[in-house]
Structures are given as C-alpha cells and as structure tokens.
C-alpha cells in the first residue's frame, strides 16, 4: 500500500521517498498546517483511490477507467463552504490467546476520506473503506452526518 499527498504549492509527499525510505503520515499533518492539501491518494491491491480536499469527491481508478463519486447528499448545508479535514488510517484487529500473544487478526481495512462541520455545527464524515481481498467487498463507503 502506498499513499501520496498533493499540496496547493505543487509539492507532494509520498509514503516512500526518493531514497526508498518510508515516510510517516505525520509529515502530511505537519505540512498541512502551512500549505493547503488538495488531494490524498492511496494505491492498494493494484487500484488507485483518491479523495479531493477541494470538493470532497472520491475517485476510484480500476485499470484505465476511473469512477468519480460525490457523496454529498441533498440537505447538507453549504458544502462549498466546507473545510474538509483528511481522514486516513489503517484499522487492525488482533486476538490474544492465553499467553497474551497474538493468535489471529490482521489488517481489517484502510480508510480514506474526510470530515467537515456544516453551518449548524453538525460533523459530517465520509470514509471509503478499502478491504483486503479476503473479505467480501473490496471497498465500501461509510457516511455519517
């Protein structure tokens, strides 16, 4: 799994740098304090997923085709005024046996998306969950708010 953050000043941060070393996600959080984040991309199991911090849309790239998803429902107040805040995580699950050692589990899914607060103070969240192939769905969209 690889990720890439694209910023307003044209710079990018990738999870693997030019020297082949891993880069921590905190670099994105730190840079986002001074430069606007435009887009966050994840490459996972041969497919590309991205979330736009400009309009909240998701793009799913499969082979040479891409599907763009807008997830804002009717009734959400002033989406154009939203300040989208990036969501990215890897959810893990672990089971522990009698020796307190891990006896099963692994990566449950990868989540990318955003949350924002509407003019009424309601927190709205959209997360695209990327599941390992061993589960029934490759991806699903979680909507709250």
């Amino acid at each position, binding site marked *: 799994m690889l990720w890439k953050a694209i910023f307003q000043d044209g710079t990018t941060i990738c999870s693997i740098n030019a020297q082949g070393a891993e880069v921590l996600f905190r670099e994105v959080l730190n840079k986002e304090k001074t430069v606007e984040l435009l887009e966050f991309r994840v490459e996972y199991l041969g497919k590309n997923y991205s979330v736009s911090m400009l309009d909240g849309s998701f793009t799913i790239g499969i082979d040479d085709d891409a599907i763009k998803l807008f997830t804002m429902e009717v009734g959400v107040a002033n989406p154009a005024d939203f300040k989208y805040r990036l969501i990215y995580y890897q959810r893990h699950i672990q*089971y522990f046996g009698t*020796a*307190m050692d891990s006896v099963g589990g692994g990566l449950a899914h990868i989540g990318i998306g955003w949350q924002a607060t509407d003019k009424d103070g309601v927190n709205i969240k959209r997360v695209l969950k990327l599941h390992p192939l061993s589960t029934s769905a490759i991806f699903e969209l979680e909507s709250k708010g």
Partner: protein
Amino acid sequence: MATTFWWRELNGSSGSNTETTLTNINFGNSNSANLTPASYPIAAGNNSYTKYVIGIWSGDFTQINNVKFWKASGSLVTGETIQMTGSIEFATPSATDAGDPAVVTAQPAVANVNIPWWQYEGATAWFAAGPGGVINGPGSGSTMPMRLQMLTTASSPAGPVNTKTFAITYDQQ
C-alpha cells in the same frame, strides 16, 4: 509502518508501582502479574484483585487511536463476571468490586479504551504526546491502559473457569 505490540501489568501500590511484561492474564487472589491460579484461587463469592494492564505499541508510526476491546470467545461459568474499563488511572489493586461494567462480548461500536496524553517509551520513560495524540518523535510508542477484574458469586462452581480470548481493534496512521 512496522509496529510491535505487547502487554504489561502494573502492580504494587499507587505511587510505587511495578511493571511486568505479561505472559498470561490469569485472575487470582493476589496483587501480582503472571500468577498461577492454583496458587491464588478465588473463593466462590469473592473477587479477583483488579488488574491494571496496558497494551503498548512501539515503532515508527504517527498515531494510534480508536481502540476497542472485547471478549471474543470463552463462556462464563455460573456467577462469573469479568469487568473492564478503559478509562482509568492506576490505583493500588484490591479485591473490592471496582464497579466497572461487564466486558462487552462483541466489537463495540465506539472506542472503549482511552489513549492517554502520556505515551510510553522504553522501560520506564514516559513523555507527552502532541495535540490529538500525534506522536512527534521517532522510535516512540503509545499505550492503552485498562482495569480488569473477575467477580464470582457463591453459586460459582469449583475448579478452573473457561479460557477466554480477548480482541482489540485500533486505527494506525
């Protein structure tokens, strides 16, 4: 990012506690880690000592949060209850009923273990995390503290209880 996870238990008394890496989480009539139940049996109608356990992640990562803990398998015997809270500070363990809720038996909908502002590094060193729990230094760790306790009633049967499997989920960046 590669991370390592392990469990430790806090014993002793508040203000002068000790820490031990766990190889089991047996409950018993003793303020001690990795105990042998046969040596510290819980008489029917009594409680185990409270167990203050911490799960520790170490390695290079940005943040651990959204931690959920539950009992995934293992039936309770008659009169047996296992209590758990994930929002605690260390206190001297005792066999008095801590009054915590029963541990849930399915993955909870929301996080039930706090990731505190303090973070774990090495054997005894603790340091503060940044806003939102984001760890700003490399080679650091994060912790999940919990209190567990087993309760029994006078009707609980003699002999060992069933083995349980506990599970956690967490989000890592």
